[in-house]
């Protein structure tokens, strides 16, 4: 009896939460197939019965004429910038985190924990504080409105997240394992590469996901540091919004913006549930 009640409560809660999470997506999905009249004609949900579906919202994403924007180039730019920045952050983050986890640094009163905090603290201040310094720095470097410039900035923003997650993860791996590898003939770097990295896949994947999500979703820096040559997806989507809000185009672009993250989530979930990563360390 108890278990039945518990189960129905559990599934009820899960259902309500799922509906709450999925509703905006369903709304965006139906809206993306509507026309102006379909959107303003009251709440309708079922295509063909309640409204006449149209592909104009989706078509507008691939045309650069009036009322539409070409979303392909911003998409590619976003993939390149986010991908590169995440990759660099993970590589540097692994090295930094391993160092902070395993070696003792001492510069006066500055110790390892202070260094970790120094990394994390960069995420404590509001990003807007950084906008002007970043703008001036990129201007001085001649990297304003360029993908490379944005990658630099994103690495600065993502590295703290990567270091923070990975330090914690490396701390969870017994030091004796590194020592054993070194006793077995590995140099410290080999021990890191051959033993620590393979045992940290789960942490690296998690950190990588955070980097991709934060990078992909950034609007603020993409907006302030680029103008015409480089335009990332979030900026392009917002640029759709003119005097008349094209809900159908907005919905369609929102959906394709979310798509890559959704895909990654699916892949990683598969990967994790297969036990390749889970329980690597007893």
């Amino acid at each position: 009896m108890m278990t039945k009640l518990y189960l129905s409560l559990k599934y009820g809660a899960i259902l309500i939460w799922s509906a709450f999470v999925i509703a905006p997506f369903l709304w965006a999905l139906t809206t993306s197939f509507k026309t102006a009249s379909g959107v303003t004609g009251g709440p309708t949900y079922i295509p063909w019965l309640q409204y006449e579906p149209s592909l104009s919202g989706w078509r507008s994403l691939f045309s650069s004429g009036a009322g539409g924007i070409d979303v392909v180039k911003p998409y590619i730019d976003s993939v390149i910038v986010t991908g590169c920045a995440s990759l660099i952050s993970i590589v540097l983050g692994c090295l930094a985190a391993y160092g902070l986890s395993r070696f003792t640094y001492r510069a006066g009163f500055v110790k390892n924990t202070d260094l970790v905090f120094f990394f994390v603290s960069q995420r404590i201040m509001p990003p807007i504080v950084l906008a002007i310094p970043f703008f001036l720095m990129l201007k001085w470097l001649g990297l304003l409105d360029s993908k490379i410039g944005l990658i630099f900035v994103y690495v600065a923003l993502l590295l703290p997240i990567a270091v923070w997650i990975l330090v914690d993860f490396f701390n969870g791996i017994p030091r004796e394992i590194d020592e054993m590898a070194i006793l077995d003939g590995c140099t410290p770097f080999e021990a890191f590469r051959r033993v620590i990295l393979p045992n940290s896949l789960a942490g690296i994947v998690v950190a990588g996901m955070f980097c991709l999500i934060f990078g992909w979703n950034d609007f603020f820096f993409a907006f302030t540091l680029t103008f015409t040559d480089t335009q990332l997806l979030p900026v392009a989507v917002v640029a759709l919004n003119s005097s008349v809000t094209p809900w159908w185009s907005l919905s369609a672009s929102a959906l394709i913006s979310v798509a890559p993250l959704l895909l990654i989530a699916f892949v990683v979930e598969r990967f994790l549930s297969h036990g390749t990563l889970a329980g690597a360390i007893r």
Partner: protein
Amino acid sequence: MSLQLHDIGLVVEGVAHLDNIEVEFERGRLTTVLGRTLAGKTTLMRSIAGLQRLDRGTVQVDGRDYSRLPTWQRDIAMVYQQFINYPHLNVYENVAFPLRRKNLSEETIRQRVDAVLEKVGLSAFERRRPSQLSGGQQQRVALARALARESDILLLDEPLVNLDFKLREQLRSELRSLLTQQQHTIMIYNTTEPVEAMLLGDTVVVMHDGRVLQIGTPARVFDYPASRAVAQVVNDPPMSFIEGRKTDTGLELTRSVTVPLPPHLRDLANGNYRFGIRANELRLGGSTLQGRVTFSEVSGSETFLYLDAPTGPLALQIEGVHVLEEGRNVGIEIPADRLFAFELDAGERLLAAPATGAAS
């Protein structure tokens, strides 16, 4: 052909972790380092392996100075007290790992790994991950990896301490036969258990508070503990100590308790000493002394008794199962011919020991 430690010293935050260590470990011999927790055994091992930076001293192998050699070039195999294996590799690859670092041929690696897995009885588990094995099996993998390397120096840091009692006994005897086959290896084995040191070691090094107190064969160290500290480390259950005075005719253990002078103490000058007696040599039922039971515990077919006596606390180990409730008064007999005599000065050196042979 040996491993020599010379003048090893390490001070951390004002506390001497290793103090003036001079030891020579020989090839083909198993040396146990016996000492309590925090005696410096592990630190000493880590110094040999190069995992611990030293303040002073040199580590030499066959005359070659290892002090400046990084750990990965020293070719030293080690087994930790925790079961340390590579979680991402299966048993076979775990054992093959150090061999691959030596760039051996796949053929040689297979032969060596197969042979050593056979020895430790894990041939059937080649494809398993360490996490899928029991504690005893995990430690066998670690041992197999250390043996497969065929390195000159094998360090075993309390390898059995995290196993349950039964398994520990079993693995200990396996270990003994495995290690006696290593004719050319310098083997060092850390332990807190005197029994283990006596069973395994060709030589015992007794450590206490970062210092080496005595080096000798197990029998020698057991029969002639150089000082009271050694006697404390090598006796489990502990040796009991009684402060007393030697006169021309007897030993005054307290004002009212005097025992006749045993022959082996006859040469001592008259004066005050600290006498020691092993737990298994004190006997119940005598009339020498009265004591009150403070704690008793039955372990297998033996009973351990802790008593409060006028001479101070006493520990007894008696055959058979005896139920003696706490607070009860019992008579104790102190066989004077089994007494060790230590000086009362700071060094607490051994001055006289009972005749050997009778001791078990």
